[in-house]
Every structure is written in C-alpha cells, then in structure tokens.
C-alpha cells in the first residue's frame, strides 16, 4: 500500500534506531496518548528494539476505555426498549456495564447492530421508519466530525428517527487534567496522529508552555513512531526549549482541518464529562448543540441510571494516567481478562490492559 508500506521498512527502522541510541542521555519517560500508538508499539514489537533507558507509558487515549459505566448502562437500557435499535462501533459490545454488556443483551435478543460508520446508522434508520435508532457516539476528535457530518445529513434528509447518545470527549482538557496531577512525571509526549489531523498542533501548546514538557505529533506507522521518539530525544540532547513538534507533516497541519472543526462547532457544544479512571473533567465532553438537539436521544427520552460501584481493586485509573502498568493490578490476567473484563482498559482492542494481554504481558523480555 502506497504511503504506508514505505513507513514500515526495516532498513530505515535500523537507521532511526541507530540515531536514537546515539542521543540517549539517561532515562527518558514518554507517554503516548493514543490507543492506536499503544497498539502499534506492541504490534511491531518496538519496545524491544529501543534502548532500555526509554520508558514508554500509555495514557488515556482509548475512547472506549474512558467511557463511564453509566454510558454503557444507558445504552443497555435503551436497547431493552422494543422499538429501539442500537447502532454502535464494534468495540463497545464487550464493555462491562454494572450488570450486563451490549454483547450479552444482543444474545438475549436486543436489537444491537455493529456499524463501521455513523452514516450506516442513518441507513438503518431510513430502512426502519417504525423504530428509533440510537447511535452510540464514542470517540475523540477524529470520530466527532464524522458524526457531526452524519447528523447534518440526517437533518437535511429529514431522517427523524435517527438519534445520538453522545459520549464524545475531547483530548486537550484531559491532557491538562492529567498533567495537573503532581504524581505524574513525563519527559515527553507522543501526541495522537489523527486527532491532531483534525485539531492541529495549536491546542497542545499549553503542554510545553505551562508544564515545560516536549511533545511530538507522530504518525501511526512504526517509522513515524521511531522518528518521533528520535525527535524528542534529540531535542533534550541539544538542550532545546520544549515545544510541539510535528513529525506527521504529510497529514497534520498546524491549524488542523478547519472544515472538520467547523462541523464539530456547528453540531456539538462543550460540556463537563466524566472519564473513567480520571473523574469529572470540565469542558471535556460534547453534547448536541441547540440547533441539533432533536437528534439527542436524551432530549427525546431520558434514562436515569444509578451511579455504579467500581471494583476497588481495579487500577484502570492509574493505568490510564500512566502511573501503573497492567501487571501491577491484582485483577490483571486473573479476574480481569478480555473474555471477562472488569475495567474498560481490558475491553477495547486499544486498551492498555488488553494490548498487554494480547501481545503477552508487556511484550517480550527474552
């Protein structure tokens, strides 16, 4: 595949690794905040190839993982109403709610359908005029404008039985909340590739300005990740002032994708939002704006769910903040496995715990 395979070349990987090893100057702690970065680091076995002084941590970049239990409980409640069809991205199916999951509800007969795009959900709505279709809106700024575009399509085509249950969250406020926690110690960030394609590099500038931490926006391919790591190390090696660096220049522009940002602003408005493991973060969530509130299922039919009890042994919160690794959680691999997840970090394919489990507990050591 053009413009993809070239960025997986082993010969070039070796060159970058050589330059990385020449710029190591003591321990360097890097947090990557995007689930796809976490996945690809494991998928390509990159940890093994890097000098041991480089420590990689995974942050809260998995939208499924940070969805609160109450969101799943609401989705389940809607699915139990016979005139409702739930349309969702596949990775929401196994997320544990307080007493069930969408997968279990589907087995019991709930009309829950997997879609690859919010546009597919509109198609389901058009073909089922007697039903209400609730699309589960999960995802960060890469997904949010796609849902916005779909809502606008629904309005244009008068698809009035299409609704969104918005669990959308935005990254920068969460990163700021993370950094306010004094326990966190990070030398550099690898920032998300495609979230940044939408929002640009400007929204992250508070990270070097307020917290004096270096950042690089790196692509998802293994060479991009290695190149990004090199850029961070070189910056410290050369004694440069921390700033937001752009590695993924072929896709990300400083100002981002203005058309997509415009769609987000038109269809959604900011609100406070609860992040599993991180608590309530002001201004970090999105709900449908007044002009589009007819598509908000909670305006049409509100469901109240009780606040669930989290398992006190679940370390998802600290794992999401990069303070602990999954191996340190007493439930990991024993009571909490991908087949029977306790915390959401184990559920999504991108979750830190799921990735550790799938790729063998932190990768290979021997």
């Amino acid at each position, binding site marked *: *595949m053009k413009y*993809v395979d070239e960025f*997986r*070349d*082993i010969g070039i*990987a*070796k060159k970058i690794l050589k330059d990385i090893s020449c710029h190591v100057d003591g321990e360097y702690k890097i947090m990557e905040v995007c689930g796809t970065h976490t996945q690809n680091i*494991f*998928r*390509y*076995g*990159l*940890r*093994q*190839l890097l000098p041991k002084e480089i420590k990689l941590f995974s942050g809260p970049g998995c939208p499924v993982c940070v969805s609160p239990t109450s969101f799943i409980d609401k989705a389940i409640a809607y699915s139990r109403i016979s005139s409702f069809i739930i349309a969702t991205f596949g990775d929401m199916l*196994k997320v544990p709610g307080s007493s069930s999951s969408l*997968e*279990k509800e*589907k*087995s*019991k007969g709930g009309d829950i359908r997997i879609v*690859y795009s919010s546009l597919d959900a509109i198609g389901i709505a058009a073909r089922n005029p007697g039903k209400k279709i609730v699309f589960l809106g999960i995802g960060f700024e890469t997904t949010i404008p796609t849902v916005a575009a779909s809502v606008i399509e629904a309005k244009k085509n008068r698809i009035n039985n299409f609704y969104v249950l918005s669990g959308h969250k935005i990254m920068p406020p969460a990163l700021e909340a993370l950094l306010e926690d004094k326990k966190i110690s990070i030398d550099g960030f690898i920032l998300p590739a495609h979230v940044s394609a939408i929002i640009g590099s400007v929204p992250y500038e508070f990270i070097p300005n307020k917290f004096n931490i270096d950042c690089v926006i790196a692509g998802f391919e*293994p*060479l991009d990740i290695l190149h990004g790591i090199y850029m961070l190390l070189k910056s410290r090696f050369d004694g440069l002032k921390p700033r937001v660096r752009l590695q993924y220049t072929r896709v990300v522009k400083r100002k981002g994708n203005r058309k997509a940002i415009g769609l987000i602003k038109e269809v959604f408005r900011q609100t406070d939002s609860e992040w599993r493991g991180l608590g309530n973060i002001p201004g970090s969530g999105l709900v449908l704006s007044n002009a589009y509130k007819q598509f908000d299922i909670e305006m049409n039919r509100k469901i109240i769910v009780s606040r669930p009890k989290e398992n006190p042994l679940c370390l998802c919160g600290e794992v999401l903040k990069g303070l602990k690794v999954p191996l340190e959680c007493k439930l990991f691999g024993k009571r909490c496995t*991908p*087949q029977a997840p306790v915390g959401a970090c184990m559920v999504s*394919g991108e979750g830190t715990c799921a990735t550790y*489990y*799938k*790729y*063998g507990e932190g*990768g*290979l050591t*021997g």
Partner: protein
Amino acid sequence: MNIITLAHGSGGVLTHKLIKEIILKEFNSPILRELTDAAVLKVGKNTIALTTDSYVVKPLFFPGSDIGKMAIYGTVNDLSVCGAKPLFISCGIIIEEGLEVDVLKNVIHSMKEASFVAGVTIVTGDIKVVERGKCDKLYINTSGIGVMGQNIKLSIDNIGIGDKIITSGSIGDHGISVLSAREGINFGGSIKSDAAPLNKLISKILRAGGVRFMRDPTRGGIASTLNEIAEDRNFGIIIEESSILVKQGVYAASELLGLDPLYIANEGKIIVVVSKDSASRILRIMRNDKLGRDARIIGEVVKKYSGKVILKTKVGGSRIVDMPQGELLPRIC
C-alpha cells in the same frame, strides 16, 4: 457463564473452555480427548477416520465459493490432514421456511460439483425444514469417513526442536471474501475465498516423508492453529512476518477493518510441520501443485518460549501471537 454468546462459537479461548468444561466432561472418550480434526478408529483390521463439521456461513454465496462447496471441502480436508483418504460424505441440511427453491438447487449443485472435484461420494443425508425466522436460510452438517494410509502417524507429539513450519499459500482470503460479501465491500473480483479440497496435495506431501503434523487453519486463522500446536508443550514456535504471504486486497481490507490476517479464516490452506531435512523437498513438491504454488516456510520450532507463538515483525521487533480472544468474525465458516 450462564448463556452462550457468539464468542463461544469463534474457535478461540471461549470455545475451548466450553469444550473442556461441558463437552469433554460428559463425552469422556480417550479418542475424543485428543481433539484432533478427525477421529482415527480401529474397526476390525481397518483403520478409518471419522469427522463432522457444521456450516453456518453468511451469506450463502460469496466470491470464490459457497456454503455447499465449503461443506464438502471442509470435511474432506479434516480427514486428509489426519492422513486419511476421504471416501464417503453424509450431509444433513436444515432449511428455513421461505427459502427459494432455486437457492437450494444451487447449493446442492455446488455440493455435487465439489464432491466430484474432491473424489468423494455423498452416500446419505437428511433434510429438515424449520419455521421462518428459526434458522438463517440454510445450515449444513457434513460428516466424512476415510481410510487411514499405511504407516501414517501424524501427531503433535512427533514435533521436535528445529522442525520447520510451512504454509501452503496466502492467508486470510476466505474470511475477507465472506466479510466483503456480507458488508458490501467491493474488491473488484480480486479477493476470492480459497476454499479447495486438499486431499490430493496432502497425499503428495505425505509420500515425501518427514511430515510431523498437519492442520487446516480455518476459524481463528493460523494464529489459532499454531497456538493449538504449541499450547502446553515444551517447545515454542517462531514465525517471520515477512515470510507470511498476505494478498494485497486482504492486507488492505485488514487495515481498513482493524483485523489481523493471522486470525482470519482460511478454507483451502494447510499448515505442515516437517523435519528440518525434508523442508526444502516438501516445499518443492507443494509448489508443483496448483494449490501449493505459494507455499512458504514461515517459521520453526524452537526451545525457547515454550508453549508460545512468537512473531518476528516486519521492522525487526518481536511479539507474542496469542490464541484469539473473542468473536472476530461471526459466521465465517
């Protein structure tokens, strides 16, 4: 667990759990415990192999194959990988009320053609019809009987350090073909299911000698099969990502859908574990057959990492390839 979910049927961890905790608990025969693709049985002076499989693929027809062909080839292959010559097939068909007769005719015709190509005879069967909505169009179960070759004892117990792992061709074609037909993804004809009868290729390979074990990587892909081989053993398996052939369209679809070809079903491929000395000879024999033209040595059996399957990635790193966890692609077989 108190209800059966789709994940229990995926061929991965939960299927194995279900088999261990419910099936083997009651059906406690030593032959069944071996959980081989076909049961090898002594009946008087003869050694025969018996196997059964059910086919619930959706949709019924997809690029390169259909449920009828799969039902014949799948059972033929399960017998062949155990070293048996497949001879006779039974077929039980469950039909949903309302299915068009033409669809049934096409499936039966396909089964006839497939049995001809494979050189087997359908000798008995059964048909049931259930009410509309109580099954999805058509399900088929086939059982097969074959005769074991002389002096052939294929077993995971034969596998030793230094043995090589060979695949007969590209991976993921079948699963992606079915999924694309289901989801309406257009490949412009470039990706077809690889469903095929492997008995003739397999008998050529067995005649060459040096074969330790064989399996066809269906549900759960080669990842599942390799893990089944290595599980609880005192050896590990290392495979090289750059040696594994993935067709362009399968590669592109996997990227788009977030799937890993290692876990995607195949219906016309085999994994053969052979002794180091016989590897290049067997590879040559496979490549001379049209069903083994793209055969590759993808890895070897090692002392380290016992019980595990390790992948050396394209960029030189390594990672563990686990048993598939849940339901990747429902109703692919």
